[in-house]
């Protein structure tokens, strides 16, 4: 047999989560010393693929996967993170796996501490061995030097700038003797520009040392700059294997987004914004401190009676916008509704002023899961608008009869499939739960409805019904709909305009029928830079 040409081969890897196929026959080959880029939209299957590579429990507790992972030409198929570590696969995590209270050395050597014997360890076993801090320090120094870091190896990690934390993570991986393949998951997302430059140089250096590198990033210019080969994933399939020399940002962007929408929504006419238009909502310089979805200085105008889509990649801040308008996270800036200022950080005021919100966290904060459908529908209006209240001898009581009638109306109108208004919302399917959330928002008689990730975690049939419902609300009741979603296709199918958020700011607004390239570029933050024709 040939000596293995590739260090890592993934052959025909497929995976489904309870019937939902998220990876379909993925093939990836990486040579030693190669930097291989992996790009794709959210939900394209990148993280699932990495979880498989790392033998994460989430894969094996959901029925494993099909296909093979070959290391140096031999079938390896790691079944636990430990096994994959032993195979020489390392990973620099997106959220750091560092312990803030420990020093850099202790973190680099986490659970791989160098120990030496003492009297007690001879009696009580290896767990009683003393840590050899001196040697650990030396090893860490060596690893840090390889990265060109002059930082003191005994400093605590807490308080280090994020860029340094990233380097500490890398140092930990290269300190492992058997490291063959290093995976970077969105490594530059947290880095400042100068740090990112330095980081890319180091990645190059690592590759020159003979380590294969799998580089996942949304920043396409980086991918082009650093990688040798690129694999583009879309909807769990490899749509293209490119040699970086032959690729450019446009091409990748187009491949990433792909043509996957029906042309139902292509007849909309896109108008540029003008000053004297009737804007129902005018957001000026909005900052929202929502963990993981920070908004940093967003300016956005929403026309009365339109469906505005808000898109962008995960972590860029699109979810933060709606949460900020509702005042659910600390917010600053200015929001004008009908030219009147909307008080910030006061959810009740926002609701009072006719803004309703359907949260992205349906099961967490969206529903009272152990309460009935009718109560779930009525609760907000009961609290905010004092609807459904009757007075009996000066005691304010909930009017059960009115609540029941209203719930029955809503169930009929929105076609909520249930056994009756008394059914607990926990027992409903995802799509029907979402309808209950929407019903509650509607009960407030809003003129703006903010909908976040309305189709997350619900099946395709229900998706369409929920989206149709939003269109119906918009057309028949003239409600302004602001829909936030990770699925671009969904936004393109119903929105009048789509705002793309990148790094907490508005990158641009596109018509739903704009080209895939434009969407791809905008989501990667490349739109302004390139001067697209």
């Amino acid at each position, binding site marked *: 047999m040939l000596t293995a040409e590739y260090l890592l081969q993934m052959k025909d890897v497929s995976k489904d989560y309870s019937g939902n196929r998220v990876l379909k026959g993925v093939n990836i080959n990486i040579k030693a010393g190669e930097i291989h880029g992996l790009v794709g939209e959210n939900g394209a299957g990148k993280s699932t693929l990495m979880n498989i590579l790392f033998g994460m429990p989430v894969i094996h507790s959901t029925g494993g996967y099909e296909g093979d992972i070959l290391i140096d030409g031999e079938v390896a198929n790691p079944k636990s*993170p430990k096994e994959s570590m032993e195979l020489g696969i390392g990973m620099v995590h997106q959220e750091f796996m560092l312990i803030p209270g420990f020093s850099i050395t202790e973190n680099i050597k986490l*659970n791989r501490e160098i*120990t030496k014997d003492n009297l*007690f360890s001879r009696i009580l076993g290896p767990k009683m061995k003393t*840590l050899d801090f001196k040697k650990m320090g030396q090893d860490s120094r060596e690893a840090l030097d390889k990265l060109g870091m002059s930082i003191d190896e005994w*400093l605590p990690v807490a308080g280090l700038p994020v860029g340094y934390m990233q380097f500490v993570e890398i140092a930990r991986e290269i300190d492992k003797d058997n490291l063959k393949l290093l995976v970077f998951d969105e490594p530059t997302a947290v880095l400042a520009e100068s740090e990112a430059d330095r980081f890319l140089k180091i990645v190059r250096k690592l590759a020159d040392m003979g380590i294969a590198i799998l580089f996942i990033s949304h920043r396409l210019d980086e991918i082009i700059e650093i990688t040798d080969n690129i694999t583009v994933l879309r909807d769990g399939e490899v749509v293209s294997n490119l040699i970086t020399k032959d690729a450019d940002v446009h091409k990748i962007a187009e491949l990433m987004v792909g043509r996957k929408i029906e042309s139902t929504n292509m007849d909309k006419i896109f108008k540029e914004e003008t000053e004297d238009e009737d804007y129902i909502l005018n957001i000026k310089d909005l900052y929202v401190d929502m963990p993981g979805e920070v908004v940093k200085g967003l300016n956005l105008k929403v026309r009365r009676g339109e469906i505005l889509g808000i898109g962008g990649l995960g972590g860029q801040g699109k979810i933060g916008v709606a949460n900020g308008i509702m005042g659910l996270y600390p917010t600053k800036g200015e929001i004008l509704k009908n030219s009147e200022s909307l008080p910030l950080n006061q959810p009740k005021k926002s609701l009072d002023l006719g803004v309703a919100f359907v949260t992205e966290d349906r099961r967490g904060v969206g529903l009272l899961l152990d309460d009935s459908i009718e109560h779930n529908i009525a609760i907000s209006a009961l609290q905010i608008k004092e609807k459904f209240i009757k007075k009996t001898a000066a005691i304010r009581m909930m009017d059960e009869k009115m609540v029941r009638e209203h719930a029955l109306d809503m169930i009929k109108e929105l076609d909520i499939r249930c056994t009756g208004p008394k059914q607990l919302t926990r027992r409903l399917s995802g799509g029907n739960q979402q309808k209950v959330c929407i019903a509650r928002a509607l009960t407030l008689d809003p003129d703006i409805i903010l909908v976040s990730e309305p189709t997350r975690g619900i099946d395709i049939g229900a998706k369409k019904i929920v989206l149709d419902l939003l269109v119906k609300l918009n057309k028949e009741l003239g409600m302004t709909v602001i829909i936030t979603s990770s699925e671009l296709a969904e936004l393109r199918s119903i929105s009048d305009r789509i705002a793309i958020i990148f790094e907490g700011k508005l990158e641009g607004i596109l018509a739903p029928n704009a080209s895939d390239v434009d969407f791809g570029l905008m989501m990667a933050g490349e739109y302004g830079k390139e001067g697209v024709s």
Partner: protein
Amino acid sequence: MDQNVKLDEIKTKRQMTSDYIFRFIVPIVFIVLCGIGYNLSELQFTFVLNEVITRLARNSFLVISLIIPVIAGMGLNFGIVLGAIAGQIALVFVTDHSLGGLSGLLIAFLVSTPLAIVFGYLVGQVLNRAKGKEMITSMILGFFANGVYQLVFLVFAGTIIPFKTEKLIISTGMGVRNSVDLIGVRQALDNVWKIRPYQGLTVPMSTIIVVGLLCLTLTFFLRTKLGQEMRTVGQNMHIAEVSGINVDRTRITAIIISTVLAAWGQIIFLQNIGTLNTYGSHEQVGLFAVASLLIGGASVTKATYRQALLGTFLFHMLFIISPMAGQNLMGDSQIGEFFRVFVAYGVIGLALLLHAWQKRGKK
């Protein structure tokens, strides 16, 4: 590069955030309280010193037994009550077999150890199922264990469990007497080496040496592989798990060590007192030990043996002076007593509150 600048920034930042005064606020307040109380009590210095040293030797071991679970991120282990129970069972056992002296005491240590390991294992198993709620769970486990203990000592002793020494059993032949005179092991450890540097001042050197050895062992332990694993688990369970540490097992080990140390601590405590209050000695152990540790400036997530020793010192100082201070100030020694109880519970409540605030601040 700009590394040097950044490092300076980190260092100053650290100093600012650590905010020294705030960190030591609890011990400082108690030192002031003790100072005022001492003046008010008008007690003789030698008397107070003698009492404090005796109590320090008596209680430190128990307080130090709390440290390891704190480091392993399991909070304050109120479950040391179970360790105390193991110690008491061992003491009743040696008294029943009329074993005495230092050898009798050593046998008590030996008997208590396997019991404490079993108890610790059970507590650890329960606490692993109640992650994040360890403190309240261990407290309730203490109450529950107390119930089982009473059942065994009141009903089974003398009936199912045979006793050699009849006078340990109530005259009806069922149940251990309310108080057991530990004639054999009374001050067995203290008496090994005692010095009397002044009139009215007795220092139990041997006991103090044992406590000192424990502190040394603890310091050593934290520098071992297992100690490092416990610190890792204490800091972040998820990261520990990902880096291949068996989190559940580490946590159980921490609780077992704590329970065994508590059993030994209770034996040291009781050999000094000399009488076992069969149904009462263990009840307040968890509470008082926890209060001592917290007064020393420890928190739910951080504790050292220095804090344990300082806290024990201050807490018991308050114990000694507050009745007299109350007597002199209000004409009623009961007032001082009330104050002390208020302090014991108050400081625990305050420490938990501070912890909750700090946690929220971090977010």
